[in-house]
Protein backbone atom coordinates (compact mmCIF):
# COMPACT_ATOMS: atom_id res chain seq x y z
CA UNK A 1 0.00 0.00 0.00
CA UNK A 2 1.40 3.39 -0.96
CA UNK A 3 1.74 5.86 1.84
CA UNK A 4 0.06 9.23 1.60
CA UNK A 5 2.18 12.36 1.38
CA UNK A 6 0.84 15.18 3.55
CA UNK A 7 1.92 18.84 3.51
CA UNK A 8 0.79 20.88 6.47
CA UNK A 9 1.86 23.60 8.88
CA UNK A 10 2.84 22.71 12.43
CA UNK A 11 3.51 25.42 15.00
CA UNK A 12 3.91 27.97 12.24
CA UNK A 13 6.45 25.95 10.23
CA UNK A 14 5.78 24.03 7.01
CA UNK A 15 5.91 20.27 7.62
CA UNK A 16 5.64 17.20 5.41
CA UNK A 17 5.22 13.57 6.33
CA UNK A 18 4.17 10.19 5.02
CA UNK A 19 1.34 8.24 6.62
CA UNK A 20 -0.99 5.31 6.14
CA UNK A 21 -4.59 6.27 5.30
CA UNK A 22 -5.74 4.94 8.66
CA UNK A 23 -3.05 6.64 10.78
CA UNK A 24 -4.33 9.20 13.24
CA UNK A 25 -2.76 12.63 13.53
CA UNK A 26 -1.44 11.51 16.92
CA UNK A 27 0.31 8.55 15.21
CA UNK A 28 1.93 10.97 12.74
CA UNK A 29 2.97 13.47 15.43
CA UNK A 30 4.53 10.85 17.67
CA UNK A 31 5.96 8.80 14.75
CA UNK A 32 7.40 10.41 11.61
CA UNK A 33 7.19 13.96 12.98
CA UNK A 34 8.94 13.10 16.25
CA UNK A 35 6.69 15.41 18.27
CA UNK A 36 6.08 13.23 21.30
CA UNK A 37 4.71 15.92 23.60
CA UNK A 38 1.15 14.95 22.68
CA UNK A 39 0.30 11.79 24.62
CA UNK A 40 -1.92 8.83 23.93
CA UNK A 41 -4.10 8.14 26.96
CA UNK A 42 -7.29 6.49 25.78
CA UNK A 43 -7.15 6.68 21.95
CA UNK A 44 -10.91 7.24 21.96
CA UNK A 45 -11.30 10.97 22.53
CA UNK A 46 -12.15 10.72 26.21
CA UNK A 47 -8.97 11.84 27.98
CA UNK A 48 -7.67 14.87 26.06
CA UNK A 49 -3.97 14.00 26.53
CA UNK A 50 -3.48 14.28 22.74
CA UNK A 51 -5.10 17.74 22.47
CA UNK A 52 -3.85 19.95 19.64
CA UNK A 53 -5.42 22.78 17.67
CA UNK A 54 -6.48 22.40 14.04
CA UNK A 55 -6.92 25.84 12.45
CA UNK A 56 -7.15 27.24 16.00
CA UNK A 57 -9.91 24.81 16.97
CA UNK A 58 -9.18 22.47 19.91
CA UNK A 59 -9.38 18.80 18.87
CA UNK A 60 -8.16 15.38 19.98
CA UNK A 61 -5.40 14.32 17.59
CA UNK A 62 -6.39 10.68 18.20
CA UNK A 63 -9.79 11.44 16.61
CA UNK A 64 -8.34 13.00 13.47
CA UNK A 65 -6.80 11.19 10.53
CA UNK A 66 -3.25 12.28 9.72
CA UNK A 67 -4.31 12.67 6.06
CA UNK A 68 -6.76 15.37 7.12
CA UNK A 69 -3.87 17.68 8.07
CA UNK A 70 -3.20 18.44 4.37
CA UNK A 71 -3.35 22.21 3.87
CA UNK A 72 -4.32 22.95 7.47
CA UNK A 73 -2.54 24.58 10.37
CA UNK A 74 -1.79 22.59 13.51
CA UNK A 75 -0.44 23.66 16.85
CA UNK A 76 0.97 21.29 19.44
CA UNK A 77 2.51 21.57 22.89
CA UNK A 78 5.94 21.85 21.22
CA UNK A 79 4.95 25.28 19.87
CA UNK A 80 3.89 26.68 23.21
CA UNK A 81 7.15 28.01 24.67
CA UNK A 82 9.42 30.52 22.91
CA UNK A 83 12.71 28.66 23.10
CA UNK A 84 13.58 28.60 26.78
CA UNK A 85 10.88 31.10 27.67
CA UNK A 86 7.86 29.24 28.91
CA UNK A 87 4.30 30.23 28.10
CA UNK A 88 2.68 31.90 31.15
CA UNK A 89 0.46 28.82 31.55
CA UNK A 90 3.48 26.50 31.61
CA UNK A 91 5.25 28.73 34.13
CA UNK A 92 2.17 28.88 36.36
CA UNK A 93 1.62 25.11 36.20
CA UNK A 94 5.17 24.69 37.53
CA UNK A 95 4.82 27.33 40.23
CA UNK A 96 1.49 26.04 41.47
CA UNK A 97 2.35 22.33 41.08
CA UNK A 98 -0.58 21.85 38.71
CA UNK A 99 0.87 18.54 37.57
CA UNK A 100 2.18 15.36 39.06
CA UNK A 101 2.89 12.49 36.69
CA UNK A 102 2.68 14.77 33.64
CA UNK A 103 0.78 12.56 31.19
CA UNK A 104 -2.21 14.90 31.03
CA UNK A 105 -0.15 18.08 31.20
CA UNK A 106 0.52 18.84 27.55
CA UNK A 107 -3.16 18.31 26.75
CA UNK A 108 -4.18 20.46 29.73
CA UNK A 109 -1.88 23.25 28.60
CA UNK A 110 -2.96 23.17 24.95
CA UNK A 111 -6.62 23.12 25.98
CA UNK A 112 -6.16 25.90 28.55
CA UNK A 113 -4.33 28.04 25.99
CA UNK A 114 -7.21 27.55 23.53
CA UNK A 115 -9.63 28.66 26.26
CA UNK A 116 -7.71 31.81 27.14
CA UNK A 117 -7.42 32.78 23.47
CA UNK A 118 -11.18 32.55 23.16
CA UNK A 119 -12.08 33.85 26.60
CA UNK A 120 -9.39 35.82 28.48
CA UNK A 121 -11.64 36.16 31.54
CA UNK A 122 -13.13 32.73 32.23
CA UNK A 123 -15.03 31.95 35.41
CA UNK A 124 -14.06 28.89 37.42
CA UNK A 125 -17.12 27.12 36.06
CA UNK A 126 -16.13 27.96 32.50
CA UNK A 127 -12.63 26.57 33.08
CA UNK A 128 -14.04 23.37 34.55
CA UNK A 129 -16.48 22.88 31.68
CA UNK A 130 -13.85 23.68 29.04
CA UNK A 131 -11.41 21.17 30.57
CA UNK A 132 -14.04 18.47 31.17
CA UNK A 133 -12.52 16.47 28.31
CA UNK A 134 -9.03 16.51 29.85
CA UNK A 135 -8.67 13.80 32.45
CA UNK A 136 -6.11 13.95 35.25
CA UNK A 137 -5.78 11.09 37.71
CA UNK A 138 -3.24 12.81 40.01
CA UNK A 139 -4.09 16.36 40.93
CA UNK A 140 -7.81 16.27 41.62
CA UNK A 141 -8.05 19.17 39.09
CA UNK A 142 -8.13 21.91 41.69
CA UNK A 143 -4.53 23.04 41.21
CA UNK A 144 -4.97 22.97 37.44
CA UNK A 145 -8.12 25.07 37.54
CA UNK A 146 -6.54 27.57 39.91
CA UNK A 147 -3.39 27.80 37.77
CA UNK A 148 -5.48 28.56 34.68
CA UNK A 149 -7.48 31.23 36.53
CA UNK A 150 -4.32 32.86 37.92
CA UNK A 151 -2.65 32.81 34.51
CA UNK A 152 -5.70 34.47 33.01
CA UNK A 153 -5.48 37.23 35.61
CA UNK A 154 -1.73 37.67 35.08
CA UNK A 155 -2.05 37.79 31.30
CA UNK A 156 -4.81 40.38 31.51
CA UNK A 157 -2.85 42.51 33.97
CA UNK A 158 0.28 42.31 31.82
CA UNK A 159 -1.68 42.94 28.64
CA UNK A 160 -0.57 39.64 27.07
CA UNK A 161 -3.19 38.55 24.55
CA UNK A 162 -1.12 36.15 22.48
CA UNK A 163 1.98 34.20 23.30
CA UNK A 164 2.97 32.54 20.09
CA UNK A 165 5.97 31.91 17.94
Amino acid at each position, binding site marked *: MTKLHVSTTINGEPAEFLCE*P*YDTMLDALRGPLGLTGSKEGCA*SGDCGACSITLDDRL*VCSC*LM*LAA*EAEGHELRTIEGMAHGDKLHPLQQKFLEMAALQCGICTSGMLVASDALLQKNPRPSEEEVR*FWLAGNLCRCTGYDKIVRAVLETATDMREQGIREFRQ
Partner: protein
Amino acid sequence: MTDIQYLSPRTLDEAISAFAAAGSAARIMAGGTDLLVQMRSGAVRPGLIVDIKKIAEMTTIEETAEGGFRVGAAVPGAVLAEHPRFGKVWPGVLEAVNLIGSTQVQGRASAGGNLCNGSPAGDSVPAMIAAGAVVTLQGPNGRREMPVENVPAGPGRTNLLPGEILVSFTLPPRPKGASDAYLRMIPRTEMDIAVVGVGVSLTLKDGVCTTARVGLGAVAPTVLLVEAAAKALIGSKLDDAALNAAASACSAACRPIDDKRGTIAYRTKVAGVLLKRTAAIAAQRAAGGN
Protein backbone atom coordinates in the same frame (compact mmCIF):
# COMPACT_ATOMS: atom_id res chain seq x y z
CA MET B 1 -6.17 -2.57 8.64
CA THR B 2 -4.81 -2.94 5.14
CA ASP B 3 -6.09 -1.84 1.74
CA ILE B 4 -7.82 1.17 3.11
CA GLN B 5 -8.24 4.30 1.02
CA TYR B 6 -8.84 7.91 2.11
CA LEU B 7 -10.60 10.40 -0.17
CA SER B 8 -11.53 14.02 0.52
CA PRO B 9 -13.54 15.13 -2.53
CA ARG B 10 -14.52 18.75 -3.07
CA THR B 11 -17.89 18.01 -4.65
CA LEU B 12 -20.87 15.97 -3.57
CA ASP B 13 -21.01 14.22 -6.96
CA GLU B 14 -17.45 12.95 -6.55
CA ALA B 15 -18.20 11.83 -3.00
CA ILE B 16 -21.32 9.94 -4.06
CA SER B 17 -19.75 8.15 -7.00
CA ALA B 18 -16.80 7.01 -4.88
CA PHE B 19 -19.03 6.06 -1.96
CA ALA B 20 -21.56 4.19 -4.11
CA ALA B 21 -18.84 2.37 -6.08
CA ALA B 22 -17.15 1.12 -2.90
CA GLY B 23 -20.36 -0.45 -1.57
CA SER B 24 -20.77 -1.53 2.01
CA ALA B 25 -17.04 -1.35 2.77
CA ALA B 26 -17.07 2.45 2.59
CA ARG B 27 -17.68 4.88 5.43
CA ILE B 28 -18.50 8.56 5.34
CA MET B 29 -16.43 10.65 7.73
CA ALA B 30 -17.63 14.00 9.04
CA GLY B 31 -15.95 14.79 12.38
CA GLY B 32 -14.76 11.20 12.77
CA THR B 33 -15.42 11.15 16.52
CA ASP B 34 -17.43 7.93 16.25
CA LEU B 35 -15.78 6.42 13.16
CA LEU B 36 -12.19 6.57 14.39
CA VAL B 37 -13.14 5.01 17.72
CA GLN B 38 -15.00 2.22 15.89
CA MET B 39 -12.00 1.64 13.60
CA ARG B 40 -9.61 1.59 16.53
CA SER B 41 -11.70 -1.00 18.39
CA GLY B 42 -11.95 -3.14 15.25
CA ALA B 43 -15.75 -2.76 15.11
CA VAL B 44 -15.53 -1.41 11.55
CA ARG B 45 -12.85 -1.92 8.92
CA PRO B 46 -13.70 0.39 6.06
CA GLY B 47 -12.06 -0.13 2.67
CA LEU B 48 -12.74 3.49 1.82
CA ILE B 49 -13.13 6.58 4.00
CA VAL B 50 -14.85 9.50 2.28
CA ASP B 51 -14.10 12.69 4.20
CA ILE B 52 -16.91 15.14 3.39
CA LYS B 53 -15.47 18.22 5.11
CA LYS B 54 -14.12 19.79 1.91
CA ILE B 55 -17.63 19.92 0.42
CA ALA B 56 -18.92 23.45 1.03
CA GLU B 57 -22.61 22.51 1.22
CA MET B 58 -21.89 20.08 4.05
CA THR B 59 -19.93 22.48 6.24
CA THR B 60 -22.00 25.67 6.02
CA ILE B 61 -24.97 27.12 7.90
CA GLU B 62 -27.47 29.18 5.89
CA GLU B 63 -30.62 31.02 6.78
CA THR B 64 -33.24 30.07 4.20
CA ALA B 65 -35.35 32.62 2.34
CA GLU B 66 -38.38 31.61 4.45
CA GLY B 67 -36.51 32.28 7.70
CA GLY B 68 -35.48 28.74 8.54
CA PHE B 69 -31.99 27.26 8.66
CA ARG B 70 -30.08 24.82 6.52
CA VAL B 71 -27.25 23.22 8.50
CA GLY B 72 -24.65 21.17 6.64
CA ALA B 73 -24.37 17.60 7.90
CA ALA B 74 -20.70 18.02 8.86
CA VAL B 75 -20.96 21.35 10.70
CA PRO B 76 -19.25 20.82 14.08
CA GLY B 77 -21.05 21.68 17.31
CA ALA B 78 -18.55 24.44 18.14
CA VAL B 79 -19.22 26.13 14.80
CA LEU B 80 -22.98 25.91 15.25
CA ALA B 81 -22.58 27.50 18.71
CA GLU B 82 -20.67 30.44 17.21
CA HIS B 83 -23.40 31.22 14.68
CA PRO B 84 -24.88 34.62 15.63
CA ARG B 85 -28.54 33.63 15.15
CA PHE B 86 -28.95 29.87 15.21
CA GLY B 87 -28.95 29.46 18.99
CA LYS B 88 -31.42 32.30 19.44
CA VAL B 89 -33.93 30.68 17.10
CA TRP B 90 -33.27 27.04 18.04
CA PRO B 91 -31.84 27.05 21.59
CA GLY B 92 -32.98 23.47 22.22
CA VAL B 93 -31.32 22.07 19.11
CA LEU B 94 -28.13 23.94 19.93
CA GLU B 95 -28.02 22.76 23.55
CA ALA B 96 -28.57 19.19 22.39
CA VAL B 97 -25.79 19.33 19.79
CA ASN B 98 -23.46 20.98 22.31
CA LEU B 99 -24.01 18.17 24.84
CA ILE B 100 -22.16 15.73 22.58
CA GLY B 101 -18.79 15.15 24.22
CA SER B 102 -16.05 17.49 25.38
CA THR B 103 -14.72 20.79 24.00
CA GLN B 104 -12.36 18.74 21.83
CA VAL B 105 -15.19 16.56 20.51
CA GLN B 106 -17.32 19.66 19.86
CA GLY B 107 -14.56 20.92 17.58
CA ARG B 108 -15.30 18.01 15.24
CA ALA B 109 -18.57 16.20 16.01
CA SER B 110 -21.61 17.05 13.87
CA ALA B 111 -25.36 16.54 13.99
CA GLY B 112 -25.10 14.62 10.70
CA GLY B 113 -22.65 12.16 12.20
CA ASN B 114 -24.70 11.88 15.37
CA LEU B 115 -27.79 10.93 13.35
CA CYS B 116 -26.02 8.55 10.95
CA ASN B 117 -24.18 6.81 13.80
CA GLY B 118 -27.62 5.46 14.65
CA SER B 119 -27.29 5.46 18.43
CA PRO B 120 -30.69 5.49 20.17
CA ALA B 121 -29.03 7.80 22.74
CA GLY B 122 -27.63 10.41 20.32
CA ASP B 123 -28.31 13.75 22.00
CA SER B 124 -29.02 15.87 18.92
CA VAL B 125 -31.63 13.50 17.49
CA PRO B 126 -34.62 14.06 19.85
CA ALA B 127 -34.12 17.84 19.55
CA MET B 128 -33.96 17.66 15.74
CA ILE B 129 -37.12 15.51 15.69
CA ALA B 130 -38.90 17.97 17.99
CA ALA B 131 -37.77 20.81 15.72
CA GLY B 132 -39.42 19.14 12.72
CA ALA B 133 -36.07 19.07 10.93
CA VAL B 134 -35.92 17.38 7.53
CA VAL B 135 -32.73 15.93 6.09
CA THR B 136 -31.64 16.18 2.49
CA LEU B 137 -30.15 12.94 1.22
CA GLN B 138 -28.26 12.54 -2.02
CA GLY B 139 -27.36 9.27 -3.68
CA PRO B 140 -26.72 7.74 -7.08
CA ASN B 141 -30.40 8.24 -7.92
CA GLY B 142 -30.57 11.89 -6.96
CA ARG B 143 -31.86 13.91 -4.05
CA ARG B 144 -34.69 13.28 -1.66
CA GLU B 145 -35.87 14.56 1.69
CA MET B 146 -36.76 12.64 4.84
CA PRO B 147 -38.01 13.78 8.26
CA VAL B 148 -35.33 13.17 10.88
CA GLU B 149 -37.57 10.72 12.77
CA ASN B 150 -37.58 8.41 9.74
CA VAL B 151 -33.79 8.18 9.51
CA PRO B 152 -32.95 5.78 12.38
CA ALA B 153 -33.77 2.12 11.65
CA GLY B 154 -32.34 0.55 14.81
CA PRO B 155 -29.16 0.68 16.88
CA GLY B 156 -26.35 1.53 14.45
CA ARG B 157 -28.65 1.39 11.39
CA THR B 158 -30.37 4.04 9.26
CA ASN B 159 -32.90 4.08 6.42
CA LEU B 160 -30.43 5.65 4.01
CA LEU B 161 -30.14 3.65 0.78
CA PRO B 162 -26.79 2.22 -0.34
CA GLY B 163 -24.63 5.04 -1.68
CA GLU B 164 -26.76 7.78 -0.11
CA ILE B 165 -25.14 10.56 1.90
CA LEU B 166 -26.83 12.85 4.42
CA VAL B 167 -26.19 16.35 3.08
CA SER B 168 -27.95 18.76 5.42
CA PHE B 169 -30.70 19.46 7.92
CA THR B 170 -33.43 21.97 7.12
CA LEU B 171 -35.16 23.55 10.10
CA PRO B 172 -38.43 25.38 9.47
CA PRO B 173 -39.03 29.09 10.10
CA ARG B 174 -40.17 29.99 13.61
CA PRO B 175 -43.37 31.89 14.31
CA LYS B 176 -43.42 34.38 17.17
CA GLY B 177 -43.93 32.64 20.50
CA ALA B 178 -42.15 29.45 19.44
CA SER B 179 -39.17 27.88 21.18
CA ASP B 180 -37.59 24.57 22.07
CA ALA B 181 -35.52 22.80 24.71
CA TYR B 182 -33.60 19.57 25.25
CA LEU B 183 -32.81 17.80 28.51
CA ARG B 184 -31.11 14.52 29.13
CA MET B 185 -30.71 12.45 32.26
CA ILE B 186 -27.24 11.15 33.02
CA PRO B 187 -25.84 9.89 36.32
CA ARG B 188 -23.22 12.68 36.38
CA THR B 189 -23.18 16.27 35.20
CA GLU B 190 -21.14 15.99 31.98
CA MET B 191 -19.41 13.66 29.54
CA ASP B 192 -21.86 10.80 29.57
CA ILE B 193 -24.43 9.03 27.43
CA ALA B 194 -28.12 9.83 27.89
CA VAL B 195 -30.22 7.45 29.99
CA VAL B 196 -33.22 9.38 28.68
CA GLY B 197 -33.24 12.43 26.38
CA VAL B 198 -36.27 14.61 25.64
CA GLY B 199 -36.62 17.37 23.05
CA VAL B 200 -39.70 19.60 23.04
CA SER B 201 -40.56 22.29 20.53
CA LEU B 202 -43.75 24.30 20.98
CA THR B 203 -45.59 27.50 20.11
CA LEU B 204 -47.55 29.55 22.63
CA LYS B 205 -50.27 32.00 21.65
CA ASP B 206 -51.90 33.94 24.51
CA GLY B 207 -50.64 31.29 26.89
CA VAL B 208 -52.16 28.43 24.90
CA CYS B 209 -49.95 25.82 23.27
CA THR B 210 -50.84 25.86 19.57
CA THR B 211 -48.18 23.51 18.18
CA ALA B 212 -45.93 20.94 19.82
CA ARG B 213 -43.53 18.19 18.85
CA VAL B 214 -41.80 15.79 21.24
CA GLY B 215 -38.68 13.72 20.52
CA LEU B 216 -37.69 10.97 22.96
CA GLY B 217 -34.28 9.30 23.02
CA ALA B 218 -32.43 6.41 24.72
CA VAL B 219 -35.60 4.50 25.64
CA ALA B 220 -36.19 2.42 22.49
CA PRO B 221 -34.21 0.91 19.59
CA THR B 222 -34.58 4.25 17.79
CA VAL B 223 -35.23 7.83 18.87
CA LEU B 224 -38.99 8.37 18.80
CA LEU B 225 -41.41 11.07 17.73
CA VAL B 226 -44.11 10.91 20.44
CA GLU B 227 -47.21 12.25 18.77
CA ALA B 228 -49.49 11.35 21.70
CA ALA B 229 -47.41 13.58 24.01
CA ALA B 230 -47.62 16.47 21.56
CA LYS B 231 -51.40 16.01 21.26
CA ALA B 232 -51.74 16.20 25.04
CA LEU B 233 -49.95 19.56 25.05
CA ILE B 234 -51.65 21.18 22.05
CA GLY B 235 -54.69 23.26 23.02
CA SER B 236 -53.73 23.35 26.67
CA LYS B 237 -52.20 26.10 28.80
CA LEU B 238 -49.54 23.54 29.79
CA ASP B 239 -51.44 22.98 33.04
CA ASP B 240 -50.73 19.99 35.28
CA ALA B 241 -53.38 17.82 33.65
CA ALA B 242 -51.91 18.37 30.17
CA LEU B 243 -48.32 17.87 31.37
CA ASN B 244 -49.26 14.70 33.25
CA ALA B 245 -51.01 13.34 30.16
CA ALA B 246 -47.98 14.16 27.99
CA ALA B 247 -45.65 12.60 30.56
CA SER B 248 -47.74 9.41 30.60
CA ALA B 249 -47.63 9.34 26.80
CA CYS B 250 -43.82 9.51 26.91
CA SER B 251 -43.61 6.74 29.50
CA ALA B 252 -46.03 4.63 27.45
CA ALA B 253 -43.85 5.06 24.34
CA CYS B 254 -40.78 3.63 26.10
CA ARG B 255 -39.41 0.27 25.07
CA PRO B 256 -36.08 0.60 26.86
CA ILE B 257 -33.21 -1.72 27.64
CA ASP B 258 -32.11 -2.59 31.16
CA ASP B 259 -28.44 -1.78 31.62
CA LYS B 260 -25.86 -0.34 33.99
CA ARG B 261 -26.97 3.18 33.15
CA GLY B 262 -30.63 2.71 33.98
CA THR B 263 -33.24 0.04 34.52
CA ILE B 264 -36.40 -0.30 32.43
CA ALA B 265 -38.52 1.06 35.29
CA TYR B 266 -36.20 4.01 35.85
CA ARG B 267 -35.98 5.01 32.19
CA THR B 268 -39.75 4.73 31.79
CA LYS B 269 -40.46 6.95 34.79
CA VAL B 270 -37.75 9.48 33.95
CA ALA B 271 -39.09 9.86 30.39
CA GLY B 272 -42.24 11.38 31.88
CA VAL B 273 -40.40 13.53 34.41
CA LEU B 274 -38.08 14.94 31.76
CA LEU B 275 -40.99 15.69 29.42
CA LYS B 276 -42.47 18.00 32.06
CA ARG B 277 -39.18 19.73 32.79
CA THR B 278 -38.29 20.15 29.12
CA ALA B 279 -41.73 21.47 28.19
CA ALA B 280 -41.47 24.00 31.03
CA ILE B 281 -38.14 25.32 29.72
CA ALA B 282 -39.41 25.49 26.14
CA ALA B 283 -42.54 27.32 27.33
CA GLN B 284 -40.50 29.81 29.34
CA ARG B 285 -38.34 30.52 26.30
CA ALA B 286 -41.39 30.79 24.05
CA ALA B 287 -42.85 33.36 26.44
CA GLY B 288 -39.65 35.37 26.02
CA GLY B 289 -37.97 34.41 29.27
CA ASN B 290 -35.06 32.48 27.73
